């Protein structure tokens, strides 16, 4: 019974997913058809360059962009794997760094007053302004370029984690803390046995944001470091040839989106495993 219900639910979810995809597909093609028919000039002229057919984008994946190169999907999957490597390292560094910063700020009100404004300010500086400096600093120390990109990605990922850690470590119930005090538990014990588990649902919300942000950070970070092998390189390349082959850039965007979704799902899976003790907290 339970199993049958599970299968039924899975089928319903798959059905819903397909339905939403069909609606989005229909909206794109419908808008396009109307725009072409009525020669819309606003918000932009609709034609095969501005809005290629979705089936053209998908078909482009299985064609050779030019005679010398392999199938587009092969190029893009290689690029995605490369970008994923950068993003994963950036995500890991951002998570650790964000947690340490958040925990330090949570521990001391004085640190919080002194440093929190700068942590917030760090996110108002555009990543495009930071990226070249990171590349120059690390490049001068002969650090491999992709590691510099990971550092740039971590700059986007540490912030949500730091804020969620700060909030989550203070989320423990007043009585739960009194209980720890009654056991004469030390600061570290309270941190690991009570505050950290309480913070986990907050942390995972932040990790979901960071997971996708790490992909964005890696893609943006690739351009100032002149890395060609990743999705950022592919996007710059296909953007130059957009007028001739717009479907190639759209196909690249599609792969980038799928990579982001994959990262997100990994975090959701990790959350299901780690926070299984409190299912009502799992989004």
């Amino acid at each position, binding site marked *: 019974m339970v199993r049958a219900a599970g299968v039924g639910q899975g089928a319903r979810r798959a059905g819903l997913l397909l339905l939403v995809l069909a609606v989005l597909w229909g909206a794109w093609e419908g808008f396009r058809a109307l725009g072409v028919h009525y020669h819309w000039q606003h918000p932009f002229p609709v034609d095969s360059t501005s809005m290629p057919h979705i089936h053209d984008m998908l078909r482009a994946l299985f064609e050779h962009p030019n005679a010398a190169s392999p199938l587009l999907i092969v190029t893009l999957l290689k690029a995605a794997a490369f970008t994923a490597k950068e993003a994963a390292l950036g995500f890991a560094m951002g998570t650790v760094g964000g947690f340490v910063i958040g925990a330090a700020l949570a521990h001391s009100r004085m640190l919080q007053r002194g440093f929190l404004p700068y942590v917030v300010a760090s996110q108002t500086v555009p990543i495009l302004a930071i990226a070249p400096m990171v590349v120059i600093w690390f490049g001068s120390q002969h650090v491999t370029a992709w590691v510099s990109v990971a550092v740039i990605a971590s700059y986007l990922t540490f912030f949500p984690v730091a804020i969620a850690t700060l909030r989550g470590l203070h989320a423990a*119930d007043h*009585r*739960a803390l*009194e*209980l720890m*005090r*009654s*056991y*004469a*538990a030390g600061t570290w*014990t309270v941190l690991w*046995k*009570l505050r950290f*588990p309480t913070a*986990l649902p907050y942390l995972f919300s932040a990790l979901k944001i960071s997971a996708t942000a790490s992909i964005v950070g890696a893609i943006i970070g690739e351009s100032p470091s002149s890395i060609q092998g990743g999705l950022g390189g592919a996007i710059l390349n296909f953007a130059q040839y957009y007028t001739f082959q717009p479907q190639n850039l759209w196909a690249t965007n599609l792969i980038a989106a799928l990579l982001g979704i994959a990262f997100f799902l990994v975090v959701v899976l990790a959350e299901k495993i780690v*926070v299984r*003790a*409190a299912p*009502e907290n799992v989004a």
Partner: protein
Amino acid sequence: MTNVVEIQGVSKQFKGGTVALQDIDLQIEQGEFVSLIGPSGCGKSTLLRIIGDLIEPSRGTVAVNGKSARQARRDHDYGIVFQDAVLYNWRTVAKNVALPLELAGWPRERRQQRVEEMLDLVELRGFGDHHPWQLSGGMQQRVSIARALSFEPALLLMDEPFGALDEMTRERLNAELLQIWEASGATIVFVTHSIAEAVFLSTRVVVMSPRPGRVSKVIPIELAQPRTAETREDPRFFELATEVREALHFGGQVEVIA
């Protein structure tokens, strides 16, 4: 008999000026079951927290087991039960009970053995692998009692532990608590605002009055032990309940109603 709790001249004034407690003197002997009863705002929970060194008195001294309250807390001399079970949701029932043992550095095997014993004591054998949210409120509170008693503290502090439960569950847990009390030999300080509960459970009832919190009367409850369902129907039970009620209403002064 030695005093497990010795309170002398304790006052507590909160920031902002509220006087929660004024000049409290109270001695509690080993093996006693003492209830603190009074209307809300009389400082009974505050007094319990001062005994447990969860807050500090503004004046006066508290000794537990002949030591300062702080030292007693550090030595794990008492267990505490709150109105809510305050179980950690991410831990199983068994791991919740084992928490104080873990913090005290007990080896795993000894921990597991003790947890089994404690779950037997509170009649939750077989629930060790459950998570707290899978249990009813009454069962959760029994887990909380098992946790408080797991390291065999000399003193058990209970802050309205059954206040959030329905009357039937409360009476059943009252009876269970008395059995546990007898089996463990612990001294219990019990905060409540139920007269029946205080009289049924206690060897002494400390009646408190509010603004500022003071002890208005101490009433020994010399009902026969062990207490059973019949105890609640004993005429003496009603007389004592009436005495507590009058002490609550008239601040300890017997008024003759014409």
